């Protein structure tokens, strides 16, 4: 429709021009020449509009508007005309030229718009098709690292700093300073890897607790993630695994604060409706000691396969720092108290991602690794 209309517009436009020339006082000869040219150009322009290719547009521009173009040549008529007609002729020719220019510019625009839309259509891609170039172009972190990062960021938000310690450790830090005496069964070679009688692979990140307390004055608020080692290997044990230890030492720290802190953690790490339950337990370096259960992340406490129907997941151990440990590490246990907790990262990852066997975390098959990014 619009095309027809503009075509009619072009026709009407030139008819108007022709009538204006006829009505002018110019000589018949000049009139005939102008009208003849006008009709000729108008005809060509109409043709151009309908069948143009890109080079036709350029050719047309050169032929009619170029230095020796015929429309440009109209202007030369003015100088050649008798003086009394110059003004009239000048007006007519200028009007005619700018009319042609406008008309051409419309044709040109229309042409390019059409060409653009044809090109867009021709360039269409199937957005559902994928490239055959490697899909592995984005990798991913190991679930243990992801879980560690998530946990660290929750505690960082609560003012905890991240500290680190050696993986090959003195028994002093792994045992003595944590109130695990010489004859304690945990020291048995069946439960720890030894390098010398006094040097071992740490069995718990709690060593970093002792190291931190030895070198830092309260208030202390730290988490220490890292690898730990124990001689077990089955579906739920790996001889190397990961823990994240937390330690707070300050004035007036109580078991209640521990619960508040771990509740915050649970709500942010899993979901806002996660509840925390304490059960009494035992660790030599905390007294009282508790096992901390979180309401099941999968069934929200209703009972499912993951939580074995109990509605609770056992995820960490914690307690009030044993005053004997504070004293051994050089902290006044009358003035200061503290709490500590340890989270098994493998367990946390297995719960969070529903991974059935701990050994899969160490399998390193990209088909497994690619599931966690």
């Amino acid at each position, binding site marked *: 429709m619009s095309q027809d209309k503009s075509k009619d517009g072009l026709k009407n436009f030139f008819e108007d021009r022709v009538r204006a020339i006829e009505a002018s006082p110019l000589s018949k000869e000049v009139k005939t020449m102008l009208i003849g040219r006008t009709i000729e150009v108008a005809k060509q322009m109409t043709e151009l509009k309908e069948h143009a290719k890109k080079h036709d547009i350029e050719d047309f521009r050169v032929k009619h508007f170029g230095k020796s173009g015929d429309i440009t040549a109209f202007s030369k008529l003015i100088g050649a005309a008798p003086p009394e007609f110059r003004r009239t002729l000048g007006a007519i020719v200028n009007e005619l030229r700018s009319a042609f220019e406008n008309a051409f510019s419309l044709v040109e625009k229309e042409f390019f718009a059409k060409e653009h839309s044809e090109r867009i259509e021709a360039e269409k891609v199937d957005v559902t098709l994928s490239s055959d170039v*490697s899909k*592995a172009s*984005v*990798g*991913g*972190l*190991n679930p*243990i690292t992801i879980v560690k990062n998530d946990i660290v960021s929750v505690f*960082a938000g*609560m*003012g905890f*700093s*991240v500290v680190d310690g*050696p993986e*090959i*450790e003195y028994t002093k830090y792994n045992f003595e300073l944590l109130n695990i005496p010489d*004859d304690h*069964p945990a020291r*048995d*070679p069946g439960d720890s*890897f030894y*390098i*010398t009688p006094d040097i071992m692979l740490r069995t718990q990140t709690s060593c970093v607790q002792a190291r931190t307390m030895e070198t830092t004055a309260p208030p202390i*608020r730290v988490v220490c993630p890292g*690898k730990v*080692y124990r*001689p077990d*290997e089955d579906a739920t044990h790996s001889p*190397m695994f990961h823990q994240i230890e937390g330690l707070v030492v*300050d*004035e*007036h*720290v*109580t*078991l*209640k*604060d521990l*619960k*508040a*802190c771990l509740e*915050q953690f649970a709500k942010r790490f899993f979901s806002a409706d996660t*509840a*925390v339950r*304490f*059960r*009494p*337990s*035992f660790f*030599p370096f905390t*007294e*009282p000691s*508790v096992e901390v259960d979180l309401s099941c992340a999968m069934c929200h406490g209703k009972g499912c396969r993951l939580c074995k129907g109990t509605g609770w997941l056992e995820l960490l151990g914690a307690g*009030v720092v044993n005053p004997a440990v504070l004293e051994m590490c050089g902290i006044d246990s009358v003035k200061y*108290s503290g709490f500590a907790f340890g989270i098994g990262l493998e367990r946390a990852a297995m719960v969070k991602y529903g991974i059935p066997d701990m050994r899969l975390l160490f*399998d*390193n*098959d*990209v*088909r497994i*690794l690619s599931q966690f990014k």
Partner: protein
Amino acid sequence: MLVPLKWLKDFVDIEGVSPEELAAKLVSCGFEVEEIINTEDDVKGVVTAKITSVEKHPGADRLVACKVSADGEYTVVTNNTWLKPGDIVPFAKDGAVLHSGKTISAGEVRGVRSDGMFTGGKELNLTESDLLGAGEDKVLVLPPDTPVGVDINKALELDDVVLDIGITANRTDANGILGIAREVAAVTGRELKMPDDYAEIPAGDEISRELEIENLAPDLCPRYLAAMIKDVKIEESPTYIKRRLKAAGLRPINNIVDITNYVLLEVGQPMHAFDLKTIKGGKIIVRRAHENEKIVALDGKTYTLNNENLAICNAEEPMAIAGVMGGAGYSIFDDTTEVVFESARFKRESVRRTSRSLGLSSDSSQRFSKGIDYYSQDAGLAKAVGMVLKHGWGRLVNGTIDSYPAPAPQKTVSFTASDIENILGIAVDKCDIMRILNALSIPTTEKSGVMTSVIPGFREDIVGVNDIAEEVIRMYGYDRFDSSSVMQGALIAGNVTAEQKFEARIQEYMTGAGAYETLTYSFITPKAFDMLEMPADDPRRKAVKLLNPLGEDYSVMRTTMAHSMLKAVGTNALRLNKEVRLFEIAKVFLPDTLPVGEELPAEKKILAYAAYGAEDFYTTKAVFEALFDLLRIPVTFEPEVISHMHPTRTAAVIADGVKIGYIGEVSDTVSAAYGIEKRVYLAEIDCDYLTSNASGYNGFKAISKYPPVERDLALVTDENIPAAKIIDAVRDAAASELLTDAKIFDVFVGPQLKLAHKKSVAVRLTFRSAERTLVDAEVNALIEKILGKLSETLGIKLR
């Protein structure tokens, strides 16, 4: 710890408390109940039946059809043709489940209907010690007074519920029925009653006239207590004792030996019984064994002792390996008439070491290894003697022999209610505190607000107020904390160090570069060094060894990540994963000296990378060039030869004149050793260097608003001149800050060049001024200068 509820009922009335409720209560006060075992679940649907008639099977000589009366009238076809009317037998009805798990169904046996089957003892998990005839491979005929038509579990009193309870390491006292009973009494609010078979041993010197004790190793044996029984009758134990031992997995032997085991289970005190006549010289000597002293233990094997093993000896030789096992020649015999009961405390570490070094473990050694308190020697002996007297198995001699050189002092702990509140964060009423502690058999009194607890001998774990607070809260209830509590304490800003921040950034970058993060063990096999073709004197062979590894594959701490990464690559290659890019940041362990002395070995974090698939040297290098750019660490690459790497496709990465790692292609023979047929690219970079030398924002630099001028030069160079050297030379030659970039975009070597030992190198130079638009003349002059110098220094010409 297996706790049969029938046994528990000897101490505390749990009538009206279901096993599930009891389990829940135990969990709430710190005793994990791992399983509630209903012993009746083992055998179901078997009832006692009385045979009313036995008729020949019409179609088979070897079968009979018995009519029986149980909870109804039934017919059973059996091949036990010897059965006779009046016999009472176990009858497995249609649907019955036997110990083996087998389900019985009724059916026809050669045309005669059989409603089930008779069973022997084995099908019911009974042995000869449970019931006469139960061990035989035929139908079990029950005693004539057995009630008929009753479930077999009830009829034989096999019905019980057993709680499998996990005991935490601090509660050594709870490794016995008595200890659990104390907790049950406290948590259910019921009374703990001691059974009447805990005898008091009258004072006197009758025992010491015949027997003396010499304790030469009080450090390993802080207490040795013994009593003597005369006129002993050795016989089989009554059913209840045998059943209880069997339920705990112990084999009944005779009354005296069974007593020692019974006491172990009930009190938690390992006991030993000697025949008095084997105690030569009338003297028990507790001493360290002599080197190479030998003893034949009760298991019939000969053990060679050493000076670290504690032995219980008579005047001449060892009679027992203390706390581990008695000697075969000194125990209880069928003709024994005089028994000495030993109830001692041996150091747990000593027992454990001896048990381990001899490779000999027993219920006694396992119990000692957990730790024994001083209360148990008296309680254990009282129970053992009491059982003898109760059953009339002998006469108690008055007096005990007792070596207890350093008696444990009576401990008390004093505290106030607010002390408890300061630990727990919640206020517990004084009356509740007192009630809880007294119910736990921790006598506690109060005077003007200060409470004093007298710590009983069986609670060696309680040393201070924190322990008291724990006793209080575990009984008061951990659910008493309101959940809206907030954390108290000083305001501290959490801190992430620059190193931690950069490490996280490296990890994120590596994933963006398409790599997946692996998780590999820190310990590797020592064979790795051969697989990596390391020379014999390679320093990376100096690895920390574990004294007690979980096998050779995990026996040394890695000094390189190469093995771990190639193993991970190998896993993927074996499973035909097409393309793999892996990375890991983990520690290697680099000891100064071997074997490890007093210093901890150095630990260094390594960023490791391995890939195969659409990879080559340059894609691998590109990954790291971008990383170093990200961390703003300028590096250079130089050819490097490393044992496990391709000799001409490996580069050292050099930062500030120091080698910080390598990247390149793995040598094909090494790849093959890991089962990989593809070309593998590997990198190891010192991650500690990266995180401590990385820099973030470097300060703002204005950008030029004038256009750059680019010029490409086609150069012909000696084929051995490395690219980096050409670029360096170009930069040196220009010596102008107008040259903002110079890079090689094409290298061509080949016969078409028609120049031997030369290569064609296309270099793109970018010139730009911060102050003006450059004109051709300026750029041309610089190019002339560059070409002149290149020709002069490296003999490089324009092509």
